[in-house]
């Protein structure tokens, strides 16, 4: 069996002391930048590219860079849970219930669930990458503009489930997010849109800036309101580890999240973004206690975290089998390979078997290191919350500003943080949820881009959306979700679930 030989080649490459060292360095660094609010893996890997010249061995450099990437996925959920500050779109979902768990003193359990879910998902999806990368790639290539459009429709239709208050407000937030996503340049005509004549906004608003503003800064402002109710600072933390009941409740969400994340991560055009949102929707739908979602449901952390990590691993598939990056981090990995003299392409697995299988093996080793590192660290992270607010808040703001600026070296991104911080605070006061806004903001441009591209390719014939089988299936799913939401009998139950907290 080839696979066995390949995997053993991979493990023998990845487990040399040298490479283990780089893997450890990568995941440590990744965890650290993930924990620092606002600083993401893209900027870090870009800063470390010159170092890869010095390392010399391409396998070691890539193992380290990959470690930073998935280390940041682990670390990013830490800030989302502890201080309601998601660094990436995927952890925006974790923030919803994770932060509520933290406010109830269950930060430790939330962090543990996130780590355990991520590890399980990472293990399964790594083996998926090893076993099925080529056939999965063939499926991903079936996704054209029409299919992506329909996928985004499913995402948007499901997004109302993210809200735990009024459904009207959730819809309003999705629409506001879609509108914010229009800022930038029309990619088909080149016309600037809603950029207020500021060239720095011609590529649109920066996701990190918007997320840091509406989640993090807004939360800090809210906490400054009342001396006595600073919820960021949790005095009593009950139990660092999940209880027996938690374990029982998190198994199924982790399994479902892993499956969803693995499937969506394969799609190079933004599928991975949907993974955690989709998982949250599914969990809320199948849960026996949907009323707990948004108030600290452990399923709302377990599912999306698993989905997000599974997606992060399988998003290596397009890179490894096609030589095409699925996201900016993957683009950096390609840059790093070229600097080392390896031009990635469809044949990288046959031309560079040690590199290819070494990276795959290191993914699993990296995940193992992360869980070993992170479980004991939970106590330490939770202690961060006992730092007095007059120290903690300025530090958060400082790191956020550095992080946001480091993405594009663009000062206008900092103005965005300020603006969206105030907007986010206003939304909190109006009892509007920021998560649907963020989903609309992320999906809007993809929705528009693919709708218009599908129409251009079909020469203006809208029937492509229903005549292409994958697209038709996805639209049918969207319709089914709509029916479930609006069917009278179901709606009655819905209202019980979504009743406005008063």
């Amino acid at each position, binding site marked *: 069996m080839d696979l066995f030989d390949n995997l053993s080649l991979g493990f023998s490459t990845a487990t040399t002391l040298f490479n283990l060292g780089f893997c450890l360095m990568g995941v440590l660094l990744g965890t650290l930048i993930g924990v620092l609010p606002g600083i993401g893996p893209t900027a870090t890997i*870009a800063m470390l590219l010159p170092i890869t010249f010095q390392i010399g061995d391409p396998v070691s450099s890539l193992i380290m860079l990959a470690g930073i990437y998935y280390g940041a996925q682990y670390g990013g959920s830490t800030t989302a849970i502890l201080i309601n500050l998601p660094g990436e779109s995927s952890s925006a979902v974790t923030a919803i219930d994770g932060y509520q768990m933290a406010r109830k003193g269950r930060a430790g359990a939330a962090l543990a669930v996130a780590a355990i879910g991520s590890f399980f998902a990472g293990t399964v999806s790594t083996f998926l990458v090893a076993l099925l990368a080529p056939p999965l790639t063939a499926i991903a290539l079936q996704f054209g503009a029409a299919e992506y459009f329909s996928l985004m429709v499913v995402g948007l239709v499901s997004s109302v489930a993210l809200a735990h208050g009024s459904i009207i407000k959730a819809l309003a937030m999705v629409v506001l997010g879609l509108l914010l996503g229009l800022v930038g340049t029309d990619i088909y005509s080149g016309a600037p849109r809603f950029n207020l004549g500021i060239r720095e906004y011609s590529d649109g608003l920066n996701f990190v800036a918007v997320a840091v503003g509406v989640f993090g800064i807004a939360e800090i402002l809210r906490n400054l309101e009342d001396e006595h109710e600073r919820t960021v600072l949790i005095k009593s933390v009950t139990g660092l580890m999940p209880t027996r009941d938690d374990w029982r409740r998190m198994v199924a969400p982790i399994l479902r999240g892993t499956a969803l994340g693995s499937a969506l991560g394969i799609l190079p055009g933004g599928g991975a973004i949907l993974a955690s949102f989709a998982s949250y929707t599914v969990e809320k739908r199948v849960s026996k206690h949907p009323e707990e979602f948004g108030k600290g449901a452990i399923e709302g952390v377990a599912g999306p975290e698993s989905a997000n990590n599974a997606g992060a691993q399988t998003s290596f598939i397009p890179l490894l089998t096609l030589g095409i*990056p699925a996201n900016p981090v993957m683009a950096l990995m390609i840059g790093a390979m070229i600097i080392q003299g390896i031009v990635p392409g469809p044949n990288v697995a046959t031309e560079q078997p040690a590199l290819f299988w070494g990276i795959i093996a290191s993914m699993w080793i990296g995940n193992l290191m992360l869980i070993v590192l992170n479980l004991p660290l939970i106590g330490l992270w939770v202690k961060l919350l006992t730092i007095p607010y007059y120290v903690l808040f300025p530090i958060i703001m400082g790191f956020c500003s550095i992080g946001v600026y480091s993405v594009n070296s663009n000062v206008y991104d900092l103005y965005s943080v300020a603006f969206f911080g105030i907007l986010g605070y206003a939304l909190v006061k109006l009892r509007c949820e920021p998560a649907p806004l963020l989903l609309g903001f992320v999906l809007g441009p993809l929705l528009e881009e693919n709708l218009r591209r599908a129409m251009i390719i079909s020469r203006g014939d809208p029937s492509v959306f229903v005549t292409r089988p994958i697209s038709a299936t996805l639209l049918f799913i969207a319709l089914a979700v709509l029916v479930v939401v609006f069917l009278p009998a179901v709606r009655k139950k819905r209202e019980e679930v979504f009743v406005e907290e008063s």
Partner: protein
Amino acid sequence: MKKLIAALAAAAAVTLYSFAAGAQAYPERTITVVVPFSAGGPTDTVTRLVAEAMSKDLGQQVLVENVGGAGGTLGAKRVADAEPDGYTLLLYHIGMATSATLYRNLPYDTLNAFEYIGLVTEVPMTILAKKDMEADTLAELVDYAKANADKVTVANAGIGAASHLCGMLFMSAIGTPLVTVPYKGTGPAMTDLLGGQVDIMCDQTTNTTKQIQAGTVKAYAVTTPERLDVLPDVPTTAEGGLTGMEFGIWHGLYAPKGTQADIVDRLSKSLQVALKDENVAARFAELGTKPSSEPDATPEALKAKLESEIARWKPVIDAAGQYAD
């Protein structure tokens, strides 16, 4: 009064001295090269390879800073406004010339905002089609495109991208407008070409060589006067019977206007040394390109290139009638 004059003279002498000493000591600290695109892309990779080799020659670190956005013009603007002290440079590709026409409200004067250091490389373009395209030769592809002009789709990576320029040039060379399908970046465009969702794309060898070698796409021509070593079976556009298609994505190194001549000269020499570096040549070759020759890696050659390219692309862009602002 005399005292004042003496003081002024002394001050002037000190200034002059330190000026001369400063130039002598150049470079005495880290140099930053601004790449006006995100990290990981072809221009970024080219810059990092050259920067690494230049830092060996200059004895100072040459850092790469990515200032992406607005087709590269944000980064160019940053350098145009930077202190002209030789510590902030710009590495920009053909976009330097095309943005002069693509952007009608450019915040800097392309021809008068920079000092020229030299050409770095000229990356060839390849004309590709999806794997199951019927046409086997460039001539057949052109015939097919002309016969099916209303349904043949040409992908590109967005307005102003190399693939966009090449697509415009291809359509103008065959005298037939085709259906243009823009993407946000080369990655998604290439994915759709691999999946057969679009028909034709023309892009830099940095992005296409491996796909061509693997047979995942069909290659019809390279836009160079001669065939490439990495793709010996792919004919040139001229061999394929298409004229006016010869071009490449040339990259130039610039400094802000007002940088002292001796610093520009030093940088130009250093660029020439870097381009002879074995590692740079080897990496460039894998990407299907080669370092610019010594006479090209000079201020004069870059200046001439920029001027001629602005003149070349203006009518092509105006004819397409599509602008980026």
